[in-house]
Each structure stands twice: as structure tokens, then as C-alpha cells.
């Protein structure tokens, strides 16, 4: 096909041809098999591109949900066949977890009688970035440093990760958290405020951390303002409510 033919295809699909041009076009579709075949492929590609590009976000959401259900399913079936071998270590682990829970419960009840402190709430959960693709070596180092509470180190690694992938919300969140830990609120807060306004999966966590960050700086009013915005059912909702009760 010549360039003019493709321009004609586009004009026909956009319904921009005059009545005469349209009739001529349709006649050619009937008589010229190569023209017809190219037009059909062009039309199909145009539809494919339109759909794929427009629905990229939805498709990605579906893919990641599917992947997590699939991983869960396959680990479960694999686990079932390996289950017996692991049962002793597993039950030991269960006792260890139970002991931790009891200990934690004790600490929490004890703390309830005291003034709240930042250190009661800076439990960030276990980071695991290694499930992502990319620079695996660096991701492992970051994960280790963060989980070991080596925030200075973790922050440096996250900076490098963000240079490569500046839009990555997970990196942004953890980078903000390390900076709260390091008292660099001028770095953490703008990031968290942006996230709190957006609609990523980390929105509610960003709101919680804004509350916590203000609390750490003794800005109680600001802290309360943010903590009240953590919606019911979100991660950290319970902690947010607890801290609110103590502050108000």
C-alpha cells in the first residue's frame, strides 16, 4: 500500500470522507483484494491499539490481582504436599509466634497506661521488594537494611532505586518512611502529601504516616487531622484510632 492509502483508511474510519469519496472507497474495497486485506488489518490494529492503550491501567490491575491469586493457589497446593516434612519446625514457629503475640500484648497494655510515644507506633511491617523484577541485588540489600531498621542505609538504596524508577509508589512510600525515621521531614512530607492526594494502593498508608510524622514532631493538631482520615478497614486503621484516643 502507498502512504496515501493509509491516510485514506484513517479518513474513512474517522468518517471524514465526502459522499463521493466514500462510495469510491467502498467500491475499491470490493474490487481490490489487496486494498481490502490491508484495510481490514489496519482497522483491526487501530482497534487493538485503542483498546490496549486506553485500558492499560485496568488490564494491569487485573494482571496483578490474577498473579497474586495464582501464586497463592500454587503455593498452597505445593505446601500441601510438603506439609508433613515441615510440621515440626512449623509447630515450633507457631509457639514462637504465640510467644511474641503474648509479649506484644503485654507491651501494648503496659503502654496504654503511659503517654503515647512515637516508638510505640513506628512498626512499619516487613518490607519485601524482592518479589519485583529489576535490580535484584539492590532490592535485596534495601529490603534487608530496612527490615533491620538501618534506615540511613535503606534510604540511600531507595534513592538509587527511585532514580531508575521515579514513579514507583512503593519505593516512594518506603523512602518517605525512612526519612521520617531520620527526622528529615522536609523530604518525607511532600512525598506523602502527594500520595495522600492520589489514588494509588498506598494512599491510606501515606495518610497514616502523615499522622505519625506530625506526631513525631509534636504537632498534635496536624497529627489528629491526618489520623482521622485513615478510613475504616485500611491498614493501620486500628493504630490510628488508638493513637487518636490517646491524643484527644
Amino acid at each position, binding site marked *: 500500500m502507498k502512504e496515501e492509502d493509509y491516510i485514506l*483508511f484513517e479518513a474513512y474510519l474517522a468518517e471524514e470522507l465526502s459522499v463521493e469519496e466514500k462510495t469510491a472507497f467502498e467500491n475499491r474495497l470490493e474490487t481490490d483484494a489487496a486494498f481490502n486485506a490491508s484495510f481490514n488489518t489496519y482497522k483491526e490494529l487501530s482497534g487493538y491499539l485503542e483498546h490496549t492503550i486506553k485500558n492499560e491501567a485496568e488490564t494491569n490491575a487485573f494482571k496483578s490481582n490474577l498473579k497474586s491469586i495464582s501464586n497463592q493457589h500454587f503455593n498452597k497446593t505445593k505446601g500441601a504436599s510438603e506439609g508433613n516434612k515441615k510440621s515440626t519446625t512449623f509447630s515450633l514457629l507457631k509457639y514462637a509466634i504465640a510467644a511474641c503475640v503474648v509479649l506484644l500484648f503485654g507491651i501494648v497494655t503496659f503502654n496504654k497506661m503511659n503517654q503515647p510515644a512515637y516508638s510505640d507506633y513506628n512498626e512499619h511491617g516487613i518490607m519485601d521488594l524482592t518479589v519485583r523484577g529489576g535490580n535484584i541485588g539492590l532490592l535485596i540489600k534495601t529490603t534487608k537494611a530496612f527490615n533491620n531498621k538501618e534506615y540511613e542505609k535503606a534510604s540511600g538504596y531507595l534513592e538509587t532505586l527511585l532514580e531508575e524508577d521515579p514513579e514507583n509508589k512503593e519505593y516512594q512510600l518506603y523512602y518517605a518512611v525512612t526519612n521520617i525515621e531520620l527526622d528529615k521531614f522536609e523530604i518525607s512530607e511532600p512525598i506523602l502529601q502527594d500520595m495522600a492526594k492520589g489514588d494509588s494502593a498506598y494512599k491510606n498508608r501515606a495518610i497514616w504516616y502523615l499522622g505519625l510524622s506530625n506526631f513525631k514532631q509534636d504537632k498534635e493538631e496536624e497529627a489528629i487531622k491526618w489520623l482521622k482520615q485513615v478510613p475504616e478497614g485500611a491498614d493501620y486503621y486500628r493504630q490510628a484510632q488508638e493513637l487518636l484516643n490517646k491524643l484527644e
Partner: protein
Amino acid sequence: MSEKKIHEDQKYIEGLLQNNSFIIQAIYDTFVPKVVNYIKQNSGDADQAQDVIQETLITIYNQASQKKLQLTCPFDAYFFLLCKRKWLNELKKKTNKEVTINEEVLSKDDDSQELAFETSLFGEKQELFNTMFQKLGNACKDLLKATFKIKSMEEVAKSLGVTYAYARKKKSLCIGKLTKMVQESPQFNQLNY
């Protein structure tokens, strides 16, 4: 196709389309074990089965959202046939020889055969279109992405710093180029339209 009655299992298609975790979970619980067994009995392992199943569900999702897929047969037969076809193709690619199909597990249901065939064709075409799109030059890729995301050609032109007429012409030429690449690829002719 349109006179045929839509099967009650259409709910699985709708569930995938809505990214409904409950339905996706139900598909894994109900229909996946049979596929895993089949793949394991035919020179595959659990990891390979996991990939085949995931890719098949993505193809169904894409077809449902682009072509309004309507199920006229049980999901079970349709899904199984699709996974099986995909797995046999993988085997063919790996071993480079013909694989014999174990016919006894094959459903005799004509509707499911036909529908599964349509969906695999759709999936293969998508794959081809995607591969070719990735091979386009960056200028074309960026322009097409902007065109279909922004919709208004005036805005596209502005965002790329070119005139409306140029953006318009460039769009048709880029899709034209893609058309030519697709038509010239050996896979395209195998997908006998």
C-alpha cells in the same frame, strides 16, 4: 453466534472482566486442578502449568473486554481446551516436533471447540500485534500512545509540539507501517483469517 443461548457460566467471564477476586478464586479452585493434572501428565510441571493458566485467563479477559466474549458452552470445557492448546503449542515450540494430542480428555462439545479456537486465535493475534508494536520506532510508539490516550488530536499535536495536520498524517502512517509489518510476518499467514 448471536442466536445461540448464552451459557450460565458467562458469570465467570463477567467476573474476570470486573476483576472480581471471588470469581477468580473460584476458577482456581474449581477448574484449575484438572488443567494442572493434564500438563503434569504431558511433560510439564506445576510452574509451567501456572504460567499457561495465567496467560490463558489474561487472553480470556482481553477477548471479553475487547470483543464482548459470550460463552455458549460450559466454562470448564472451554477453559480446559484453551489451556491445553496453549500447552501443546509451548511443547511444539520447545521440542520443535509434532505432539500428539491425547484425544480422550477432549470434549466433544462443538461449541466449546469453536469458541476455544476463536479465543486462541484472538490471543495469538494479540501477541503478534504486541510484538510488532514493540518493534516500531519510538517516535511512532509515542505518537500512537498519545493519540489513543488523549483522544483529541489537537491536544496530541500540542503535547508533542507538532501541527495538527502533521500529527494526523503521522498517525495513519504509523498504523500503516504496523499494518505492513504485521502482514509481512510469517506468523500472520498462519493465523489464516
